[in-house]
């Protein structure tokens, strides 16, 4: 490699660009592997709710590990900016803890560690960013999704706006002790601290080695050229897209502090000839006295992930490709730029999903072959934060579990990736093993499976929702969840049907079901269970355009019932999947298919 590097000022050729890109990708991949394998919180080691990012000294997003889109498209760059503003004296061995949604953070549960890469001459070259969602962040209730929080004070999380947590590679124990005094299950937090900081340090070590090997100037040239290359790919992709302007509304259900629900309005304009996509979010409600407000990082990321989902090509996501997206946001807007002390406790999921889903659906409505339907809304109890105290866990336990979520959105090219989780997660999350959870926690999983007919009908089918029933085996268990989609079903696109709504109940020892609120900290006594229905996802295209053979397969495999096959798809088929051709012809003629 050292031999291949061109003299100063020369452009890198295509092969050199590709190789350096691979080297940098593998550094971020290595960081991610460390975080996944060593993280303690379920949300890290199961849901992969973390990201590892490389940012330039000019605070430009250069590379991201393959991780949750809602985490990585914007925010790391803004956090690095805050770090440089607050700490103009960066030294090798520094590291910063950052979780402030008012300074580029996503939401306070996402503890982020920033490690500046300083070369041998003391020059700041890059910043390694490792962001890791915590099981607990010191909120006033044991959940990291405090939907009912009136403001940041009611929310209760400790906020760290780029606070120096290491100097000279040594921990700042003052900060560590503050966290230990406020965060539940502090050993778990400490383990996550080691994991995330370790990940940033591994990245730093590798970047220092790469800089020494190929030269920092070469890396700078690489970054510039890579941004240009990515921007060019983005322009080409947008050039092919159908042009026009579309306004889409998506509703978030009524929640405490947002009793009327939240109607998100997204205006998307695609201008193919200019290679530009413009998104306006200004005509939306002001920030609300609840935890659903988006941070700026989440607002922008949710717009961008809707756009990248909508483009069939593979375009690198970095500062270069992001140049082609123009966003209009305003301060003090529920989907904009929050003003302290607005709470952003649930900024990465619920309302962010409304924005992302609206964007991809708007693009779908501009032309067939583009965009996607809406993915299911979350966070159902099966993905809730469980807490309690038991002998089994040697005292208190707080952790998010991932017992099952589906609800993928149909795309023009394929049926949904069923287990998408939610649009911001993109299916990266693992689904917990029943055995693993029953071993770790005092709980019993009575059942979990996908729900027939819960996916939106369409030419391509939306993903099914998950039924999950579980309860404590020792003492009471609290389950914290914020389940959107109880009322507003995930929409289909271009004539596709809606996904099924979410729902939740408590089952008492007699087997009777009791309705639970959509946003709650439910107490489930021993002997009772909580029953969770997660949303389905929307379908794409008219159902009668789906081939009868595919529908027969869906019926045989129990994704679609015989009745829905007949009434919605216009296919007469037996439960065993045998098609009645004549009857199907009649049904489809009647549907105009």
């Amino acid at each position, binding site marked *: *490699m050292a031999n291949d590097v061109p003299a100063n000022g020369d452009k890198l050729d295509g092969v050199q660009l590709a190789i350096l890109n*691979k080297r940098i990708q593998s550094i971020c991949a*290595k960081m991610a592997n*460390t975080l*996944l*394998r*060593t993280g*303690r919180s*379920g949300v890290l*080691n*199961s849901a*992969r709710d973390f990201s590892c990012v490389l940012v330039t000294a000019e605070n430009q997003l250069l590379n991201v590990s*393959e991780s949750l*889109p809602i985490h990585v498209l914007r925010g790391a760059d803004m956090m690095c900016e805050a770090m440089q503003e607050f700490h103009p004296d960066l030294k090798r061995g520094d590291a910063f803890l950052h979780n402030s949604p008012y300074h580029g953070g996503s939401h306070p549960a996402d503890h982020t560690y920033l490690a500046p890469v300083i070369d041998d001459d003391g020059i700041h070259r890059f910043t390694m960013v490792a962001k890791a969602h915590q099981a607990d962040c010191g909120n006033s209730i044991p959940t990291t999704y405090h939907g009912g929080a009136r403001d940041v004070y009611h929310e209760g999380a400790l906020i760290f706006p780029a606070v120096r947590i290491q100097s000279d590679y040594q921990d700042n124990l003052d900060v560590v002790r503050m966290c230990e005094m406020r965060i539940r299950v502090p*050993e778990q937090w*400490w*383990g996550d601290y*080691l*994991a995330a*900081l*370790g990940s940033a*340090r*591994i990245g730093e070590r590798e970047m220092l080695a790469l800089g020494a090997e190929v030269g920092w100037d070469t890396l700078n040239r690489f970054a510039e050229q890579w941004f240009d290359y990515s921007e060019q790919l983005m322009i080409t992709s947008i050039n092919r897209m159908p042009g026009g302007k579309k306004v889409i509304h998506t509703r978030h259900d009524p929640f405490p502090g947002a009793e009327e629900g939240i109607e998100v309005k997204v205006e998307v304009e695609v201008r193919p000839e200019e290679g530009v996509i413009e998104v306006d979010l200004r005509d939306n409600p002001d920030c609300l006295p609840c935890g659903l407000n988006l941070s700026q990082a989440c607002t922008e990321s949710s717009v961008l*992930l809707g756009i*990248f*989902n909508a483009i*069939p090509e*593979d*375009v690198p*996501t970095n500062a270069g490709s992001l140049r082609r997206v123009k966003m209009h946001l305003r301060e003090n807007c529920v989907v904009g730029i929050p003003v302290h002390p607005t709470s952003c406790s649930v900024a990465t999921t619920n309302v962010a999903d409304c924005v992302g889903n609206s964007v991809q659906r708007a693009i779908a409505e501009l032309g067939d072959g583009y965009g*996607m339907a809406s993915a299911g809304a979350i966070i159902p109890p099966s993905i809730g934060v469980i807490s309690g105290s038991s002998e089994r866990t040697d005292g208190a336990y707080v*952790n998010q579990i991932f017992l099952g979520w589906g609800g993928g*959105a149909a*795309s023009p*090219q*394929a049926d*949904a*990736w069923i*287990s998408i989780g939610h649009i911001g997660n*993109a*299916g*990266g999350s*693992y*689904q917990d*093993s*029943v*055995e*693993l959870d*029953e*071993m*770790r926690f005092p709980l*019993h*999983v009575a*059942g*979990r*499976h*996908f729900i027939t007919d819960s996916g939106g009908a369409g030419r391509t089918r939306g*993903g099914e929702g998950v039924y999950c029933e579980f309860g404590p085996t020792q003492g009471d268990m609290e389950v914290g969840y914020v389940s959107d989609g109880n009322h507003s079903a995930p929409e289909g696109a271009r004539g596709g049907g809606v996904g099924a709504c979410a729902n939740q109940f408590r089952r008492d020892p007699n087997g009777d079901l009791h309705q639970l609120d959509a946003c709650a900290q439910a107490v489930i006594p021993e002997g009772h269970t909580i029953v969770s229905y997660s949303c389905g996802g929307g379908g794409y295209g008219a159902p009668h355009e789906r081939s009868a053979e595919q529908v027969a397969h869906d019926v*045989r*495999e129990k994704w679609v019932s015989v009745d829905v096959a007949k009434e919605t798809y216009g296919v007469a088929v037996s439960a065993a999947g045998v098609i009645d051709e004549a009857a199907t012809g009649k049904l489809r003629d009647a549907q105009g298919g």
Partner: protein
Amino acid sequence: MRFAVDTGGTFTDLVVEDDSGEVRMYKAATTPTDPIKGVLDTLDAAAADYGLARPDLLAKGDMLIHGTTHAINAIVTGNTARTAFLTTQGHPDILVLREGGRIEPFNFTVPYPQPYIPRSLTHEIPERIKYDGTVREALDEKAVIEIIAALKETKVEAVAVCLLWSIVNADHERRVGELLDQHLPGVPYTLSHALNPSLREYRRASSAAIDASLKPLMGEYMGGLDSRLRDAGFAGRVLVVTTQGGAMDAADMAQSPIHSINSGPAMAPLAGRTYAEADSGADTAIIADTGGTTFDVSLVRGGRIPWTRETWIGQPYRGHMTGFPAVDVKSIGAGGGSIAWVDEGGLLHVGPKSAGAVPGPVCYGAGGTEPTVTDASVVLGWIDPDFFLGGTMSLDREAAAKAIQSHVGDKLGFGLHEAAAAILSVATENMVHAIEDITVNQGIDPRGAVLIGGGGAAGLNVTAIARRLGCERAIIPDIAAALSAAGALMSDLRAEYSGTLYTQTASFDRERVNELLARLEGQCREFIAGPGAGSIEQIIEFTAEARYPSQIWEIEVPLRGNRIASDEEVAGLRDDFHATHEEIFAIADHKSEVEIVGWRANVRCRLRDGVQWNVQEAASEVEVPDSREAYFSDIGLAEARVLRFEDMERGAEVAGPAIIESSFTTVVVDPGASATRSKSGSLIINPVSGG
């Protein structure tokens, strides 16, 4: 005398080792519809060469070790048995939900994978065992019998059973097995606890599903192999290579055929390790095995062959997890038979489609029309059309040239030689990419490793690959053309036994742990006394699968002894965990206690002493000229020296451009590179002269 036969997609390789250590190799075309025919054909070739009748040759054999792609081919082509899945009531979607996870977050053109066993063949059994092994809900036998009746109705050919927590209490799974025996006799089944007693129901269920679906087919294959070899006069032991790089008796393999999934490629690194050490003293090597259809990369790191714990058939999250660890091998569709084609945008591609054994490359003259890497090599003058497979097969250069010109040259506006050279360049780039993928994953810098070329087509671009990777040395062993088969001869008998038992270092359950370790050791001893009887050396190694509290991904920590007898030894295990964690992840939490979830015992029985081979090439009647015209991208047409591999003196050096040929392989030494014959007989290539 010992035989090793490796059945690949295009060729079947045979290596014969006689009692004096003399080794000979043979190749025959693979017959996809009857792979055993290829095995017998190679034995025919060997018999002719030894001047014996086939029964007489076979009668001399003590052992035949077989590597086969039969199982993986059946899975990839969807030809496995119609298999049903029986699981705990309430949890029918274990194989659908899997463990989640997805690659390429923004790519929604890839559909969600179909479960390995369809939902329509999945049945829920009323029963439930708790995490501690106690029964929460008794097994409803009447319901099981009704389900079995339904299975009969739907004509299932195999059954996979995975019940929750069967790893701590197998009573229900066992009883379901008995009921299957009773009510569905003759239909093979797999019980998850017996096959793969590990935590996490998806992995265990997936293991059972894959295994059961292979049983009818692999039972028949193993039976056929055994009986046809017996009929042919072989009276020795038939072993089959496992995915873990060991060997097991064919009859045992028929009982758990999942272990044969990556049978062939797992052997190459065994041979690679031996040659890397013998020829360069290196303990880090990249083994690149190029056959007709696939290019398989494996590694040796610090003298050990790295494994992967999570083995997927197909891509991660899009394919199916086998639930077993395996020798880490990366395979791509690239080889001598890979087809070159130009897409609508004018971009040249090579592979993954292969001309395979039938019809084969255009130059075989057997009906192939699309140009391949082999055709390009013939056109470039690298492969001698009159000396292919030692002159036993003559190649049609004209047909190859025509195909390259029309399918590639004309579309790119290239002349014939330019087009052929471009095909090789793209093939090289594909291979380099595959190597980079696996080395990055395993944390190996290719520049510090030696490159070992194996397989018939390895020599064509081994110099080019070494240059691209920055390797200082590339080695082509004299047995390279049958590297996997050679590795099979170096393999040990292996078995692995495991158990799930949760405990932590703070409150270590010594009694139950030692009980489990004693049981695992007993299983190993039984293996040694059974299949391992008569082996030269037996090694049992124990490992703990451990993690920090509230982590969920375990790492493996070797135990210092066979039991954990004292508090000091528990502390030792804890220290070893911290050290291993730090080695892998660069961090350790020294304050923390450690949880142990699983325990494993590995038993290895060594079948032979160190390898001291003397490879004999079948003599060829064909006269080969000293030089011929060949084309190289950087210097164009040039007169290249031509040498016979077996005639090259030990210690002799040749400067490129040169072509070194044997009956089974062609090694191209590019201009600017050089090659030396080592003491062991390998060809050592220095990709950059003076480097």
